[in-house]
């Protein structure tokens, strides 16, 4: 670590350089408009190539020190100093909001939270991974669940959490005198998930080890709220890279992500979705940065590392991986025009780092005579559904209206509206807390206005869009990959269950794109009214957040 820090240019010195900021902001032409797209990239790359370079012999020492110097600094302070203040405030707001959600949502009353808690318990207590997908909860956790009336409250909105001193005394007595069993080999739905998020959560779990199950859960929830901050931060930075000419719009997008109730709700709980949202936002930012400034070794290492973290966080990342690989290939192809074969090095580094956990995992499984992909193998071998066209038709209809010629897989259900839009408006608790139908209908008005403004903005900037089609295609393929994975997973249980994974939380990895769309919508109102419309959009998200928390409080604590 110290070696890395010592061999790279001092970050504070770079930060103080007044010209650096301008360079970082991208090449600007006389009108102050940023040059973006492949032509701008080629011009910048050619300028870089013309600089005289001293070729050295390729020794191991120089190779390693050169590689280390390109790695990002691990010191946080200089990094924070370089970040826009608005981005940091957005991150702070997202954290505070998620903490508030962690207090409003009752313990364990959120999709699969008992399973995720059990996974951490197993990892922290025994150091080994869980082995069973059953819901035979460990005695210690079970005692808490029963005392909290969890099984009566879950999915039954007519029932509420404990509300008397007698019940509280009973809970405290059970927590104090209950069994303290080690580990929890059965983790229900969390079994197939990779261990990184849970490994991180063992830190707060262990810190509160002397406390009760509820102490540990609350501390773990607080740790999870940090991911909300990171998601908002990287979403802000992504918007800054993609819409460099409209500074105020970055704040609109970043604030809306920070205030999104779905992000606060999920990040205020123990669930790897929160970490995947942060990882994905970071990845979008890195790709956007690379599309604007070129794929150098530092960014390649960062993309590889963040992708590796994504693979280790949640299986859903697999859906995003093809888009990320395509992005790195497109960036390499651009660099090839000016740098030739040396452009392949960042590609190899990025892909090598990104897929190293997957390769390692497969190797370990094969050496242990297990299925190469572990529990994921079962998901791939699906004897029930063999029709590819049927699967494509199902995935299409899970998100969009049915096309002529497709079998109707969702009769009487407008999936776009009822599963996704209504779900985004409000789908809290253990999928049992929703707004009344009229609220979902009312929400269509601002959503429609935002969509129209966004389209207007895209149409007005279509000339710029044409120059950035490859970048946009990469983002689209990342999003489509994720949607397809969620759809394919749901299809496995179809028709027994129509749409098992049709839950908006699975789309949290696309928060950065969502923020950019909202920033675009504000920009679509024009130069004069854009900031005012942006302010209204932010207040709309704040209102959505406040009413959502009121909804949850009213459902559980009345």
């Amino acid at each position, binding site marked *: 670590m110290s070696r890395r820090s010592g061999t790279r240019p001092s970050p504070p010195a770079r930060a103080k350089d007044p010209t650096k900021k301008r360079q970082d902001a991208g090449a600007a032409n006389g009108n102050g408009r940023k040059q973006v797209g492949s032509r701008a990239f080629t011009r910048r790359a050619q300028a870089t190539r013309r600089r005289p370079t001293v070729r050295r012999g390729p020794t191991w020492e120089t190779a390693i020190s050169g590689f280390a110097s390109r790695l990002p600094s691990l010191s946080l302070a200089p990094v924070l100093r370089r970040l826009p203040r608005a981005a940091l405030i957005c991150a702070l707001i997202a954290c505070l909001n998620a903490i*508030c959600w962690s207090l409003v949502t009752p313990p364990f009353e959120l999709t699969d939270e008992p399973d995720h808690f059990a996974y951490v318990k197993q990892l922290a207590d025994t150091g080994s991974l869980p082995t069973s997908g059953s819901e035979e909860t460990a005695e210690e956790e079970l005692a808490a669940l029963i005392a909290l009336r969890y099984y009566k409250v879950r999915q039954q909105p007519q029932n509420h959490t404990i509300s008397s001193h007698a019940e509280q005394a009973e809970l405290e007595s059970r927590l104090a005198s209950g069994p303290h069993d080690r580990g929890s080999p059965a983790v229900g739905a969390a079994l197939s998930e990779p261990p990184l998020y849970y490994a991180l959560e063992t830190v707060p779990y262990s810190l509160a080890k002397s*406390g*009760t199950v509820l102490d540990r859960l609350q501390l773990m929830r607080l740790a999870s709220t940090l991911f909300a901050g990171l998601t908002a931060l990287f979403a802000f930075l992504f918007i800054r890279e993609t819409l460099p000419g409209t500074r105020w719009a970055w*704040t609109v997008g970043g604030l809306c992500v920070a205030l999104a109730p779905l992000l606060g709700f999920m990040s205020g709980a123990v669930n790897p979705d929160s970490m995947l949202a942060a990882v994905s936002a970071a990845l979008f930012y890195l790709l956007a940065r690379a599309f604007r400034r070129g794929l150098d070794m530092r960014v390649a290492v960062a993309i590889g590392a963040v992708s590796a973290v994504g693979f280790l966080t949640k299986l859903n990342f697999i859906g995003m991986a093809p888009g990320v690989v395509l992005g790195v290939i497109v960036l390499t192809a651009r660099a090839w025009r000016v740098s030739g074969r040396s452009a392949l090095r960042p590609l190899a580094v990025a892909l090598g780092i990104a897929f190293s956990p997957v390769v390692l995992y497969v190797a370990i499984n094969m050496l242990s005579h297990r299925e190469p992909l572990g529990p994921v193998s079962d998901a791939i071998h699906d004897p029930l559904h063999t029709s590819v066209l049927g699967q494509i038709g199902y995935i299409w209809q899970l998100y969009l209206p049915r096309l002529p010629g497709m079998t109707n897989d969702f009769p*009487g259900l407008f999936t776009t509206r009822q599963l996704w839009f209504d779900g985004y408006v409000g789908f809290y608790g253990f999928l*049992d807390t929703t707004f009344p139908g009229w609220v979902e209908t009312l929400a269509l008005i601002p959503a429609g206005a935002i969509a129209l403004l966004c389209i207007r903005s895209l149409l007005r900037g279509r000339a710029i869009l044409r120059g950035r089609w490859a970048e946009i295609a990469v983002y689209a393929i990342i999003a489509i990959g994720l949607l397809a994975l969620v759809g394919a997973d749901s299809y496995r249980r179809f028709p027994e269950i129509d749409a098992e994974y049709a839950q908006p939380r699975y789309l949290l990895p696309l928060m950065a794109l969502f923020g950019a769309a909202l920033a675009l919508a504000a920009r679509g109102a024009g130069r004069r009214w854009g900031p005012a419309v942006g302010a209204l959009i932010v207040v709309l998200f704040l209102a959505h957040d406040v009413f959502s928390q*009121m909804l949850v409080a*009213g459902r559980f*604590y*009345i």
Partner: protein
Amino acid sequence: MREVRIALIAGLALLVAGIGVALARSPMSVARTNGTPSREEAIAFTTHGATYCQSDELLPQGTSAIRLSFFAFAGPRLRVVVYAGGRSVTSGESGSGWTSRVVTVPVKPLARAVSGATVCASFQMRDEELTVFGKFTSRPSAARNGREVLSGRMWIEYLRPGTRSWASLVPTILSNMTFGRASSGPGIVVLALLLLAAVAILSSRLVLRELR
């Protein structure tokens, strides 16, 4: 800048007004239930359309929603019709896509109580399973799906707007929030309210500073 300030103030004023309107309303409360068993039983399963009817129901005056104990992952559109004396006395629908162990169907409010009513819930489905919860009973009093007799009676709750507003329930809600926590006491409620206020203030300040 002036436009941003006006938009922000107007938006926040609307938010406060909206909270006021929401707090002035009353939450639905259970006017009557046909018996909450200590342990619910699954009395029917279906993967296709059905019309479940249950006789001898008593609907209180003012009933404006009917809660049925159905479970589905992506529930179908549901239509509820209440018959008494051979004619429909109220009806209502809920949209598809619900997920829960219960589904609440808003109906036209009843002007007076109705006894000896038959409550029918009908829906169309294909393949996905819907479970009906209730209590095992003898065949004569059990619910029916056409000629098919279910294993028992469906559990139904009749809801109407409560007599207390959300505003008057706020102290109860805040008090209940302190239970079932790592540390009980009012601190958690105060902290949650402070956090929410901080989020609103920080967001507003950032909007005023950056959006110009």
